[in-house]
Each structure stands twice: as C-alpha cells, then as structure tokens.
C-alpha cells in the first residue's frame, strides 16, 4: 500500500529571487504510513512549519513533489482542494482563527466548505465536540466567551470535524498550563485511538513526542537529520544535544545516573519505562 504522505526531494525557498531569499527546507524525502503517529522536532526556524504546510498544499514546493496516497497533490486544482480536506492542518495558536457567532458554527465551517449536507455536518460537529470534550451547552456559546483552553479545543475540533485522513497539529500545547496541556495531548491520543487516523505532531517537547509518537522526524537547519522509530531517534542523545535539541527529561536523568556509574540502561524515554528500569535495578542491587 502506498504511504499516506510521501515527499520526494522537497525544497522550498521563501522570497525566491529577491534580496530576502531564505531556504526553508532542502531535499526532504520522507514516507509516512497510514496510522502512524509522527512527532516532528526541531528548532524554531528549522523548517517544521514550512514542511507541514506542504502536506495540504498551502505551500507549493519550489522543487520536488508531495504525494498523497501515491498521487501528486499539485496535479490539478481539484487535487489541491481535496488535499486540504484529506490532510487537516491545525496551526499554532489555532484559537485565533475562531470567528463565528457560536462555537457550533465555527466547528461547522470546515465541513460546510466540503459541501456536506446539514445532517452530516451536525453529526460531525457533535462528534468532533465529543473528541475535545465540549458540551452541547458550550457549542451554543460565542467562541469569544470560552476560556483559553476551551478556545484551543474548539479550534482543534474545527479541524477534526473535517475528519481528515491525516491530522497535523503544529504545537497544539503552546501557551497552555500543564493541565491544559495534558487535556489536549490526551484528547489527541484518544482521537487517534478512536479513528485510527494518521497523526503528525509538531512539538518542542521531547517528552510529549516520546510519550505519544511512534516515529520521530528531526529537522535541523532545513534538512532531515533523523527519521525513524522514537527509541531509535532518542538513542542518538548526544547528536541531538549537539544540534541544540534535547532528549526527554527522564532520559537525561538516566544518562546522568549512567555517568555516575550506575549500571542503568539509557534507552528510557518515558516515565513508565523509567519506573520499570529503576525497579529492575533495585531488584538487581538489593538482595
């Protein structure tokens, strides 16, 4: 089966042929399989946002190709438009895109643009609201009356309601408090489990990527530095640190323990793995 998203030598420049020409991404060739959960990590300005905007045809590559289900999305006007609905893109601080009178109408904006019937729109809006935990009462409120976290969730629901094959989220937890962060990450996880759709998550938090994603894509200076299963990527801790990136906090703790002479494994990426490793160690050390 063809991968859901495939890019071939994708290159993008901003402000081509002007004084302000900047290379955003160079020669990115990746394949993302159906149902995968990919975490994209990299510095600010490493090209993460540029890359994801190619997935749904918002940006046109200067050279190279983007294939959705094996078909070039820039083949025709219609294929670009269908890419918009196949790949749901949720930008950073999505709450700033809310504009309708009620939350319900705002979530319905996407499905309406798809040309769906009223009944279908209704089902989808309610389903999406369910994923993000918004009550029927909240749906009738003005989006501007919601709290910060609720606004964020309403905006995410607006993308989910299109029921895209691939859901791309650009730092969905930026600027939220710890509880808001956990809620949003939890609902993304649940959404994926319920729909089985492919999810791509751009994040600064190595912990979040380690906890949720199955694969990690590391971008450094406009190029793909690493792409593979999460534990494989994080096992290159030193290289990541050289790029000025990091490994999950718990991995750093175990690397520190190792440096201090404790016989622990450093391939520990989540708290759960850490707990097990410590238990194993204490079983080994104490009689």
């Amino acid at each position, binding site marked *: 089966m063809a991968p859901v998203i495939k890019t071939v030598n994708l290159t993008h420049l901003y402000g081509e042929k002007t004084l302000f020409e900047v290379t955003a991404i160079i020669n990115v060739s990746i394949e993302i399989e159906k149902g995968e959960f990919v975490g994209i990590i990299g510095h600010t300005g490493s090209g993460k946002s540029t890359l994801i905007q190619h997935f749904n045809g918002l940006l046109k590559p200067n050279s190279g190709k983007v294939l959705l289900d094996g078909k070039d999305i820039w083949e025709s006007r219609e294929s670009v438009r269908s890419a918009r609905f196949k790949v749901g893109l949720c930008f950073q601080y999505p709450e*700033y895109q809310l504009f309708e009178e009620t939350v319900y109408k705002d979530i319905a904006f996407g499905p309406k643009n798809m040309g769906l019937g009223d009944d279908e729109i209704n089902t989808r809006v309610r389903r999406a609201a369910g994923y993000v935990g918004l009550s029927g009462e909240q749906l009738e409120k003005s989006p501007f009356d919601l709290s910060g976290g609720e606004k964020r969730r309403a905006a995410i629901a*607006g993308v989910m309601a*299109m029921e895209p094959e691939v859901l791309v989220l650009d730092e969905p937890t930026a600027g939220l408090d710890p509880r808001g962060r956990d809620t949003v990450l939890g609902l993304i996880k649940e959404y994926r489990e319920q729909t089985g759709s492919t999810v791509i998550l751009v994040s600064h938090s190595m912990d979040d990527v380690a906890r949720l994603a199955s694969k990690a894509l590391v971008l450094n200076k406009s190029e793909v530095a690493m792409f593979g299963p999460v534990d494989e990527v994080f096992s290159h801790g030193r290289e990541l640190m050289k790029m000025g990136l990091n490994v999950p906090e718990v991995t750093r703790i175990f690397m520190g323990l190792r440096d201090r002479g404790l016989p622990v494994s450093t391939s520990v990426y989540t708290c759960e793995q850490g707990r097990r490793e410590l238990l194993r160690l204490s079983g080994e050390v104490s009689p």
Partner: protein
Amino acid sequence: MIRDITIGQYLPGNSVLHRLDARMKAVLTFFFIIVIFLCKNFWSLGLMIAFTLLFTAISKVPLRMMLKSLKPIFVILIFTAVLNIFYTDGGRELFGFWKLSVTDKGLYTAGFMVIRIICLITGSSLLTYTTTPTLLTDAIERLLSPLKVFKIQVNTLAMMMTLALRFIPTLIEETDRIMNAQKARGADLESGGFIKRAKALIPILIPLFVSAFRRAYELAFAMECRCYRGGEGRTRMKQMKLKARDLGAAFLVAALFCGVFFLNYRFKALI
C-alpha cells in the same frame, strides 16, 4: 502574495543616503518634489532625470527594487499619457482619426508628465527605502514641533504614526497566518463572484480585528507599565545631529534648484 506589499519598505544599507539625517532627508525630498514641478522644458527635466539617477546610484538601492515601486502606478502612468496625448490643444497635427488627433505638443506633454511622475515616485521611494520608519516618524515629529504653539500634540501624533507603521508588517503576517488557517479548513478565497469573495473575507477579517484589538490593549498596558504618560518632556536615546554630509546633500539639492531655474530661463518653456 500578501507579503509583496511594499508600503514604506526599508532596505537595510550603509550608503551615504542611508546615513543622512532623517530630518534633512525629509526636507530635501520635499524640495526635490517641488523642483520636479518647476521644470518647464526638456533641458531642466533632463537635469532632473540626471539627479534622480545620481541619487538612486548613491543610495545603492537595486534598480529592480526601484522598478518594483513603480509597478503599482503603471496604470496611472498609461492613463496620464493617453489623456495628455489626446486632450492637449494646439501644436502640429501628426496624424488623426475619427475626432481624435495626435499633435506633437500632445506627445511632448504626455512624455513630460510621465517622466515627472516617475521622478516623483522614485524620489519619494528613495526616502522610504533608505530611512527606517522609526527614524522617519522621529524626523516628522521634530519638523512638526513648531505646531505646538497651536496646542497640537505633536508627540502623541508622532507616537501614533510610529505605532501604526510598526504594526503594518505584524498585521500583514497575522493576515497571512489567518488566511492559511482558514484555507486549511477549506475556505475558498480565489473563486466566485464579487459578493462571494467579499463574504469569504469575513472569516479572515473578524479574527484579524480581534487580534488587532488584543494587541492594542497589550501594547497599551506594556507602555503604561513603563510609565508612558504621553509626550510632554520625553527625551530620546538617539539624538539627531546635523553633520557635514547633511550640508553637502543640502548643497546638492540647492544646486539642482538653481540649475533648473537657469535652464528654465535660458531655454523656452514647453508648457
């Protein structure tokens, strides 16, 4: 793309023109524009063109950028030329058809007007290409400060101008972001008739206004936190001082002034 808008776009550089005192530059640009309209024949206009090219060369602004600033007025140029060709009375008729006739005087006038407008735009773009918006508003504030006599709050006006200029790029970026976000939800901004397109702007304008107000509040708070109490008595970090090169520039423009007067007087007026 929306990023291509160049209102008062500053091009970083280190030419003499960049380093001139902003006040002097503003005043000289003003005089430069006056001189353009004092030219009465092709000799003085030629001198004008020479000086325009000279200043462009000194500024080291790429010719491509200069042409780009002329692009938006292309239609106006054509319009002016056509009107002048057909609506100028007198002169020798070169050829004519129907009720329209083309005279040599008409052609001259048209050429004259087009060159004037090009000089005008080039001159004023040079000012904005070589001066940062902040410096420019600073300069305008200084130049307008005599108006304080009439109880006009020059400081406040200048601050408003600075802020407005400062937020143009920010709001353009914001518009870009919101447009992308709505396009990602399938908003169709490119097709349909006038009404459909106008309607398609609602999902962009509402978030844009909301965010503009939010930014305004945040900025007001930030300014008050740093004890901004309106203009009176504020001093500045960067003092403006006139230097030798500013006087040099003034002499250059004065020379242009005299040259144009002389050539106007020496040769007969065309229009």
